């Protein structure tokens, strides 16, 4: 009960901060629209649907990276991670709340990305929507963990993509596969990825953020 209250309080704080600062979601929306527009003019007419879906997933991954870059900015700029780490709640609550807010921001970006993709390239089916939701869970889990790792480093802008992008390759494979071909297998693959990485990230966050 106490754990849930801490997660709710922290997630509420992240959503409130974004609602007031409006720094992350507008940037993600702008990036989604700009990237899909550029791809629309860059790829030749008659490009296969599978190739176009690959571009959609590239946009989703890089939009997530943009959101993750900003995920720990308030804590980093104002040294607030110290205050959160000293609180007696389980430190995984910090990860869970932050992952929830990353998930929410990414889902909002996809509310624009999927219709824009349908407009520029081809319609999206239920499998793509399901894959996007499953991918968001994995991206939020892994991304929040590596975001917390990167926030402590000096080369954080370099470290985050270096850590996150290799871990996102299975999501890309699962997402493109579920969108274009064998839905069931690839959706199951994404579910498995989510289960493994949610558990790993939840269990290891404490060790990532604490020196003592």
């Amino acid at each position: 009960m106490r754990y849930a209250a801490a997660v709710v309080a922290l997630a509420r704080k992240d959503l409130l901060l974004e609602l007031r600062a409006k720094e992350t979601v507008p940037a993600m929306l702008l990036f989604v629209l700009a990237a899909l527009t550029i791809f629309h003019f860059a790829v030749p007419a008659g490009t296969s649907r599978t190739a176009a879906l690959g571009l959609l997933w590239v946009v989703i991954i890089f939009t997530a990276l943009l959101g993750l870059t900003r995920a720990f900015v308030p804590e980093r700029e104002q040294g607030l991670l110290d205050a959160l780490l000293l609180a007696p709640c389980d430190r995984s609550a910090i990860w869970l709340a932050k992952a929830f807010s990353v998930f929410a921001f990414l889902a909002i970006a996809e509310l624009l990305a999927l219709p824009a993709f349908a407009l520029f390239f081809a319609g999206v089916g239920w499998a793509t929507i399901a894959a996007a939701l499953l991918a968001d869970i994995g991206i939020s889990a892994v991304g929040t963990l590596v975001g917390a790792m990167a926030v402590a480093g000096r080369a954080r802008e370099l470290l985050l993509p270096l850590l996150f992008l290799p871990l996102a390759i299975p999501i890309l494979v699962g997402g493109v596969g579920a969108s274009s071909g064998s839905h069931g297998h690839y959706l199951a693959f994404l579910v498995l990825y989510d289960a493994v990485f949610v558990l790993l990230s939840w269990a290891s966050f404490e060790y990532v953020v604490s020196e003592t």
Partner: protein
Amino acid sequence: MISATNLGKRFGAKRIFDRLELRLGRGDFLLVTGPNGSGKTTLLRVLAGLDAPSKGELSLPDRALIGYLGHEPLVYRELTPLENLRLFASLYAIDGGEQRIRILLERFGLWRMRDERVSGFSRGMRQRLGLCRVVLHAPELLILDEPFNALDAAGASLLDLTLAEFAAGSAIVVATHDPERVEALATERVAFG
């Protein structure tokens, strides 16, 4: 409350402090002095459990019993004082949090601005809010890094009063460039470089 034996901290080849022995219990007040960059903040971070010592043994109370104020007030600037303190009241699972928050905000002269965003506050007002956050859960170990920074005369007097109140039932560690201000309370001293 704090027990340190042969405590040391290094950053690479640079030795920050070495062979430090400390025993602090309720009613003890450790005054840490020294010039900028001498290691005061590092010692306070180690004593708060935020950084690990490089050597020695250190026993600290549970995190729930520690109140830590760093160089920054450690409050969210896009939130209001009420929202900030409600967040930390939830994290510390404080019973009667709302009443405690009101008492502290009134005491530190912030009740009138309770619904204004902290980003519009002066540095001194943010420091007052940081002090409210630190004492919100009635900690038994107070660790304050340059707590008088940016406070005006009224704010500094409020802090004097708060320290005097906590001095009897808690252990206090204060790093400051202005040791005369708390010299009378100090029972232990560590002087850097």
